[in-house]
Each structure stands twice: as C-alpha cells, then as structure tokens.
C-alpha cells in the first residue's frame, strides 16, 4: 500500500513536470538571417543551442598561466551549466585560435553546426594588468554580435570570465545573467543532535569558498542585501549573554557583526526590502508570531500583521509595494500577500498541503515556495495571483528556495536520508522549468542558500 502510494505520488509528479515542460518550458532557438541570434527562454524548442568556444590567443610571456585555456573553459562551464547551451567538442574545430584573430571562416563553423562562436585574445598591459577581449559571432548570420574588452589584475581572471559569461548569456537569451554572483549559505557538520552551523560564502560556481562565522553559535537563514555588501541572518549567538535569539547584520567588507535590535521576544526570518533601506522579519512573543518592518536608518519598527497566528517568512515584491508571507491564520499553513504597509492581506495558495517560505522572483512574475504534502517536501512556483502552481523539485526534505538574478534560475537545499541513517544535506540549482537540476558542490553539508545580486564593479 505504502509503495503504491509512493509510486502514485511519483507518477503525479512526473506528469506535472511533463506537462509544465510541455506548456511552459519550450526552448526556441531562432537563427533566421534577418533576426538576431537569440534563445527564447519562455517559448519554442527544447534543445540547447550548440556553441563553439575557441581557446583564446595570448601573449607568450603570459602563456604559462594557461589563462588562454582557463578563461574559455570557465565561460563554457557557466554557459553549459545554465542548460541553455551545448559546447561543441573542440577537437572538431577546423580553425585554431591563431586563425581566428581576424574574421572566422563561418562555413567551417556551420559544418559542425555551431550557431554561435566565441573567440578571444589576452594581452598584457603596461600596468601589469591583463586585458581580455572577446568577440561573439553569429555563425549563420555571418556577423559579429558584439565584442568587449575587460582589464584587471591577473588574479581576477575568474571574475573576468564570469562577467564575459553574463554578457554572452544576456546577448543570446535577452535575460539578465547570473554568473558574476555569490551564494551565502549555512555550512553544516556533526551529528543531527549537535549540529555545527556556520555561515559560508562562495562564488556561484563554488570557487573562492570561505567561512564567515566560527560555528560556536547556531546561525540560520542568511540573506543578501541588494547592495551586495551586507548579509542579514538569524542567530543564537547572544543567548549566553542574556540576548534573545535574534536577527543580526554582517558587513562583508569589514567582517563586523551586530545585532539588529533587542526586542521583547525572538526576532527571525529577516529579509531586506528591494532598495535595501528596510528589513522585514518575524517577532514572536507570547505564542504568536507577527511580521514587522524596520527602517534601517532610523531603526523605527512598525508591526504589519496582528493576531495570534504565526505570520512568518516575509518577502518583498521587486517593486517594494507588496509582501508575500506564510501564515497559519486559516488553520493550515498558506501563502498570503499584503501591501507593504500591512493592508489588504489576501490568501493566494489553495492547494492541499502546507505552503511555506515564499520568495518573490526578482522579475516579479513568480513566487517560489516550499510545500509539504503527503510526507514529501517540494519546491514549487506560482504566479503572484496564485495561479499556475507547479512543483519543480522534490525530496525527503527540500526547503528554502532563493532566486538568482534574472529570475530564471533558483537554488534550494535538500536533505536525503542515507543508508546508515545519517542525512546528506546539499545545495541544488534548478531552472523554472524544473529541468537541469544539478548539485552545487560544497565542502560540507549545506543549507539555506541565498543568491546574491550581481556583483558591483
């Protein structure tokens, strides 16, 4: 019976994914002569666009650093990981990097069915910086789509590659890129009963990993501020000094941490407003949990919800005018939207099961959430009016969706029971079609990811 039930749920899930793929997630590759080369993420055909990324040319005295291979390889990794591009095998390229310094022979690239070609050159500047210039070619249109040139210190070669990846992605999809970004998350180790949790940060591809806290006190739910330099999180770090478990702020530039404020009860579930000047959070006292907003300049707080229910996990719409949150005011846990001043709360979720941790997409068109139903956890999406609900990921426990800039890709975490009874907790990346799920590699177990906005130059 149990097995049958599981199979049934699985079947429904597969059907769900299939239908959402069928209706929503068609990928179209357009390459008519007159129209610019572009992938339409929301319509069309499913296949990834075949692209060629040649190794770059480089000055002789820079050669030993292998940047002429490493930079194109990192660009290729980014684009392929997005699921929208397929890298053509370099063994099949008929022109070598040197032959590509002038305009490519497009016919040679059409033979291997490349639709776009990326070429590049690395040179050394007088101030010891490197200059990386790349060109993106439309193979069928036989023209250069764009060229850019970036210079920086040699050690910044990864960021250079990420920025180039974003430019190419943006040119070919029309969507905002998300490669020059970071992810802050909770790194976990030790037994479930006595879990060590510390804040950690890394580039979106897992590079430049570092820990921000030492693990002596419990930390949860870090979230980036829109200005990129601050993180807010929930921690028990002050409880030995008589402080309640509270919301904290962490300055990434200075490494300094401070408590947001002292409140009568616990403060948690923090998130910044889109312009970074306010912060919404839950305050719980006497058994009820309500949403409050704090102006970060004058530290004035205002209560937005009232009553004995649990109102938590608030998240702003990108225009700052509305807040989506999780409440059990109707009995079960559901999603509600209210104005930023707390007025006009309206329920938007009506399906079976519990809905939690809603997060508004940076494009405004979707709300991602965690759903618990029939003993399984799901990551789902719905439009802000509650329509078109669909589930894109599943697990023993999946939780905490976070949006990459552009609003087409998400990260979340998943706990999977292991044969020995332990839990494996890892971060995953998935796109809104529910396809192309992949694990983000972290040194230890990982949870509560928060994707940064684009890095600031």
């Amino acid at each position, binding site marked *: 019976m149990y097995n049958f039930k599981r199979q049934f749920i699985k079947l429904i899930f597969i059907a769900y994914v299939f239908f959402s793929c069928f209706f929503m997630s068609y990928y179209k590759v357009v390459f008519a002569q007159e129209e610019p080369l572009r992938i339409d993420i929301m319509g069309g055909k499913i296949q990834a666009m075949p692209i060629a990324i040649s190794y770059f040319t480089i000055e002789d005295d820079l050669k030993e650093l292998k940047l002429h291979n490493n930079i194109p390889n990192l660009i290729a990794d980014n684009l392929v990981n997005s699921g929208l591009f397929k890298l053509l095998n370099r063994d099949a390229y008929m022109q070598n990097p040197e032959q590509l310094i002038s305009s490519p022979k497009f016919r040679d690239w059409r033979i291997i069915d490349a639709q776009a070609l990326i070429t590049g050159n690395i040179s050394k500047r007088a101030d010891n910086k490197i200059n990386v210039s790349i060109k993106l070619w439309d193979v069928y249109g036989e023209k250069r789509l764009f060229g850019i040139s970036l210079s920086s210190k040699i050690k910044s070669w990864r960021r250079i590659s990420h920025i180039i990846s974003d430019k190419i992605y943006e040119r070919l999809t029309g969507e905002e890129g998300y490669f020059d970004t970071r992810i802050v998350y909770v790194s976990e180790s030790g037994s479930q009963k006595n879990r060590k949790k510390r804040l950690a940060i890394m580039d979106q591809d897992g590079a430049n990993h570092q820990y921000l806290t030492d693990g002596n006190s419990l930390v949860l739910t870090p979230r980036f501020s829109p200005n990129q330099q601050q993180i807010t999180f929930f921690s028990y770090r002050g409880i030995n000094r008589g402080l309640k478990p509270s919301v904290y702020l962490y300055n990434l530039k200075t490494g300094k941490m401070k408590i947001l404020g002292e409140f009568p009860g616990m403060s948690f579930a923090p998130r910044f407003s889109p312009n970074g000047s306010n912060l919404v959070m839950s305050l719980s006292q006497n058994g009820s949990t309500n949403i409050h907003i704090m102006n970060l300049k004058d530290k004035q707080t205002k209560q937005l919800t009232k009553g004995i229910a649990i109102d938590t996990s608030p998240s702003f719409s990108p225009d700052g005018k509305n807040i989506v949150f999780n409440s059990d005011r109707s009995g079960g846990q559901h999603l509600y939207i209210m104005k930023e001043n707390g007025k006009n709360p309206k329920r938007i979720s009506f399906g079976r099961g519990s809905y939690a941790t809603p997060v508004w997409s940076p494009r405004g068109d979707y709300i991602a959430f965690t759903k618990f139903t029939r003993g399984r956890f799901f990551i789902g999406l719905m439009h802000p009016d509650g329509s078109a609900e669909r589930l894109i990921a599943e697990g023993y426990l999946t*939780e905490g969706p976070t949006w990459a800039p552009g609003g087409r890709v998400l990260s979340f975490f998943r706990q999977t029971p292991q044969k020995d009874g332990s839990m494996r907790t890892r971060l995953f990346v998935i796109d809104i079609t529910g396809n192309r799920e992949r694990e983000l590699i972290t040194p230890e177990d990982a949870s509560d990811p928060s994707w940064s906005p684009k890095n600031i130059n």
Partner: protein
Amino acid sequence: MLKYFKVIASIIVLSYLVSCSNKDQDSLLLDAEGGNIEISSTSTEEIEIEDVTATPIQIDEVALTVEEKLSSELIDVGDRVFFGYDESIINDESANTLQKQYQFLTRNPDISITITGHCDERGTREYNIALGERRGTAVKNYLISLGISSSRIAVISYGKEKPTVEGHDDWAWTQNRTAVTFINSN
C-alpha cells in the same frame, strides 16, 4: 601501575585537603558514575607509596551541587512535555507533568527557568522557530495559570534545530515535538 598509585594517592591527599578546607568543592569534581577525575586546581601533590595495602584508602563522596541536585530532581519530576504534529495543546499527560513542575517550582521559589520549544523535522526552519515558541509559551502560560510568576519563566525556541533524538520515523518525530524545562544558572 606506579602512575595509578600516584593518582589514587593524589585523590586521598586532595580529598583530605578538601574536607579540611571548608569543602571547597570546585577544586575537585568526582563523577559518581564513571569515576572520572577532573582536577582543576594546581595543587596536585604527588607522594610515593610502596604498598597499597599498607595505607587504607579513604574515599569521600563529593556532594552534588545545589544546581545539579535541582536539575536531577526536575528530571525525576518530568522536565518535558510532548505535542501532536503542528500542535501546541497541553494534553492531560502534559498537564500532569506541569502540575509536578509547578510543585517543584513552588518548593524552590528562588529558581527561574527557561523553556525550550522544539519541533520535528517536518516543517520549514522559520515556521518551526515560530511553532517552537508557541509550544514553549503554552507551557509557560500553563505554569502561570497554576500560579508561577511570569518573571521566573523565559521561552526560547529551537525549532527543528536541536532534536532530542536522531532519526526520521514516527517515534523520533514524537520525541522531538517537545518543550523542555531547564533551570537557569543563577
């Protein structure tokens, strides 16, 4: 072997010193169960002894601190109550336990307590923080209704972060939906 004698001898000397010096218990902690010895002061003295049987060994038991005694008494009384899934209702069994906690708190009017609320893993972190607070508060309010002053009771929620038992089945979930009472140190 000689090392062993030295340790035992140190105990004797120390326990003698301790019993003489107004029972300064902080300097010697003897774990009643394991017999583990932790010597925190620097006054360790070593003496050589040739034959164990020649010197009768006197072992003095170190009394529990007031705090330890109270904690173990609270555990005997019942330090925790349990809840149904996504609930914070004090049922009859919980009421019975809390009645005993009330009597304990009345017998010991000087102590204050912290109630920690906990949830099983089947909920999101943030919702469970709130739910744990609701459970802790349910216990607090029950004790207040029996006559305990609210100033003696603090509530902290750990949500699903500090489960009592590991495991991912009904039994584990039942054990982890709880509110536990702790005595505050001073």
